[in-house]
């Protein structure tokens, strides 16, 4: 998040800006009472903020105009743009994480948790979304298939992130910051370094479903 020397503070009763080159202060004041969750697109052109009326507002900062309003079923508590700035992920108290087209405001995907979604993070390549919820799980979703790829159990989740290379998912729970292998490929590679033998033919016969014929 970068902008030439500007500083935006989010507060409980609104957001304020200091030394903002393009009128962010006026902009935020105009948005009203509730801007506790604010984020900027990577190129700093767009600003997204959650509003008190269960929506997210996308704003063009240079022109100071509202581009679109994304309606949610309940209060939005997490916002993040993808690295290329084309998409916005939101997490809300309606138990859903959603992915939106940042240009058009079209909803591209939605992923269901069993409780409030408090944290969202795109993978660096934009292919996956990590979500953290009050349902005591962090989950990783494939944006291509729409499927849940991994589920990480927690007592509580207070942050999620990917490492820079996208290989690990970082979760924060109470005092603990954990770095997880999340992709099936990395789990299988890890398993290969820990097992001391292979499956016997008997074990395969007994426990695995029959391979489909040609």
């Amino acid at each position, binding site marked *: *998040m*970068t*902008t*030439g*020397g*500007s*500083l*935006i*503070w*989010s*507060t*409980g*009763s609104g*957001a*304020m800006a200091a030394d903002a080159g393009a009128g962010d202060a006026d902009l935020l004041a105009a948005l009203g009472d509730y801007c*506790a*969750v*604010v*984020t*900027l697109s990577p190129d*700093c052109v767009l*600003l997204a903020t959650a509003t008190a009326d269960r929506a997210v507002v996308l704003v063009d900062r240079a022109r100071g105009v509202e581009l679109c309003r994304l309606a949610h079923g309940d209060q939005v508590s997490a916002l993040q743009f993808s690295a290329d700035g084309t998409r916005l992920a939101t997490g809300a108290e309606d138990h859903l994480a959603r992915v939106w087209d940042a240009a058009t405001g079209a909803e591209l995907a939605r992923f269901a948790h069993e409780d409030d979604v408090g944290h969202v993070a795109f993978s660096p390549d934009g292919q996956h979304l990590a979500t953290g919820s009050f349902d005591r799980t962090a989950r990783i979703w494939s944006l291509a298939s729409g*499927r849940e*790829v*991994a*589920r990480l159990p927690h007592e509580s989740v*207070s*942050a999620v*992130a990917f*490492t*820079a*290379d996208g290989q*690990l998912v*970082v979760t*924060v729970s*109470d*005092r*603990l*910051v*954990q*770095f*997880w*292998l999340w992709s*099936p490929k990395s*789990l*299988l590679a*890890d*398993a*290969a*370094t*820990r*097992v*001391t033998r*292979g*499956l016997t033919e008997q*074990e*395969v016969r007994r*426990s*695995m479903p029959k*391979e489909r014929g040609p």
Partner: protein
Amino acid sequence: MQAEPVRQDSPALLERSVLLAAEAMRRAPSLEAEQVLRKDLQLLPRVLQRQRHARPVEVVRFSRDGLRWAAGGRDGVVRVRAVVDAADATTITVGAEVRDLVLSADGQLVVTASGDGVARVWELPGGGLRSALQGGTSLARVRFSADESMIATASWDGTVAIWQTATGREVMRVRHDAAVLHLAFAPSGDLLATSSQDGTARGWALDGREVFRVSAETDGAKKSRTMSRVAFAPDGARLAIGCGAGSLVICDARTGAVELRVPHAGHVRAVVYSADGRWLATGEDGGAAIWDAQTGRLHRRLCDGLVGDVAFDARGELLATAGGDGLARVWTCTTGVERVRAVHAHATTAVALSPEGRLLATASADHGYDQWLDAGGPTKPFHGDANGAWLWETRGGAVAGAIECAGQVLAFARGSDDRFVAGTATGTVPLWSGPRGADAVATRHGARVRCAVFSPDGARVAIGGDRGLGCVIDATTGATLARFDGVDGGWRGSQAATTSLAS
């Protein structure tokens, strides 16, 4: 897909469960297989080294600095290896089966106790024999005094002997009426405690005078009278004695006056204090347990089945247990949660944890545990290839690393190059790189930290906290670069949810 039920039914089948879940994942990735694989991998440690022995191994030790580990087997072979390099090793051929061994703190000596009744002092790294001390007909245990100036041996023929380490001169020789199974020097070095199959544990002054005697309770007529283990509390005030009849006795270490008898289910096979004196751990026929060493109250029961050996790390945070079922398990003492589970084909006979708790050494035998445990003299023929010693990490899979912060993390951010910052409820702000916490520094903020954001170039971090306190710190050194006070009153005022700093 049967991986999950397999794991729950029998803890020994952990590896098979991983193999089945991995195969299921390979065939058709599913969340179900992912969950089983992830859960099982978190318990499965990685083997770092393996030492093969022709016959059962009954003892493993780490050097005090944790840089080397040693194992000795009934095949008469002792290997002392560097934990980072299996090729950096000394192999000693003792010439008689090895029952016990100790390493000196400076890593210069290893002392073996053998089935031929001889304790041998070997010099490292050369492996030359310095002295051979005849301590009876068949030795069970050997121990150094705290300052390592003396060596004591316990023999199956009832003999207890003490020698000077430097000269090999005999200091004391006394007898029990039956086999002596265990012994321990008091931390002060002026008292030796022994436990015997004659139904007594005794305290000896170094001139051979018997200072006290604690007898096994004989109420239950058919119960074993064996006193199996002795352990001094680190402060030397108390002595814990494990009994074959199934009780743990805590007595005054100077007088032998019994303070507490704790009944158990079965034979007590191992008794160890943690170095900080907080915990006492026991291995029994019916499992393992951690006790509050001050009150004698049960803290946690850990597992079922025969546990023949237990060992703490130097901090008293982790406990390892050696199971007759082949499982060596590492537990977190405070919570009783299992951390990793090392699986052996047959019995696990001994365990040791490196001082900082990062490594687990295990010894294994290819036969049932009871066969060798109290067998004493001549041993039955053994076969199979499960005899050996293993070195493991005490970390499971699926997680590449974890950082424990000094307080609840209220703010968290990642900068470029995987530099991380956390802001905690206690006002500490740890900064580190990567999953293992490289280049970690911690700085303090004047208040509970509510938010943290990296500057675009990753060089600085903006921190916001309670009471309107904000600051900018150097992301590498943690040094404070700028400070802002009274930002809009309360903490919300300084919650820089979107803060961008001039680059």
